[in-house]
């Protein structure tokens, strides 16, 4: 079945260093991929969504490229900010009739001064 695997656990970075959170997926069909961000005591919010035409989505300095050959949708940012500290979830939406959403287990990013 469909599934998402992402960098698990805790990632700690120093402010100003690049961010790279890995996400790979398994899907029978060509899925949509998403990144959600959840700050402390808040609900998850959509950060990025893959495009069907190979464009690279960008938001708040984050970007991700869907690579079908390697089934990946890694999240990147050139320079981490303190405010980037949050939980990040990679998610996949299949294209079956029920259009299920599958979430990775989440990565906790902490950016330190």
């Amino acid at each position, binding site marked *: 079945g469909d599934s998402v695997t992402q960098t698990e656990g805790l990632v700690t970075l120093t402010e100003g260093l690049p961010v790279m959170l890995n996400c790979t997926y398994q899907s029978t069909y060509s899925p949509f991929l998403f990144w959600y961000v959840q700050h402390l005591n808040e609900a998850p919010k959509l950060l990025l969504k893959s495009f069907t035409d190979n464009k690279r989505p960008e938001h708040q300095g984050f970007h991700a490229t869907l690579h079908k050959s390697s089934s990946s949708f890694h999240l990147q940012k050139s320079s981490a900010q303190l405010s980037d500290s949050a*939980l990040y979830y990679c998610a996949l*939406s299949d294209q079956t009739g029920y259009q299920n959403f599958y979430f990775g287990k989440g990565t906790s990013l902490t950016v330190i001064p």
Partner: protein
Amino acid sequence: GALVYQYPRRTICKSGTSMRMECQAVGFQATSVAWYRQSPQKTFELIALSTVNSAIKYEQNFTQEKFPISHPNLSFSSMTVLNAYLEDRGLYLCGARDSQNTLYFGAGTRLSVL
């Protein structure tokens, strides 16, 4: 823009009683609504996926008898936690999907059980 209102934000109920939470999509028509519970480990457990005019699909370990869902129209869904016990505690999230296949979350309902 697309917004999803979920209420209440927090609720406390006595063990064995029930509570209902509601979800409203604003600014778009939701093609489906998914209800999740976020575990203490912060993973998402899908409870059920609801599409208007179709049968609600419950995931393993979740049943309609325990978590009845109503989805009468494209913008509104509600879920009840019946006979809540300690193991039902957690953050319940509704996610409404738009026609572009994007899922938008409500603010969540944090359930505490005494």
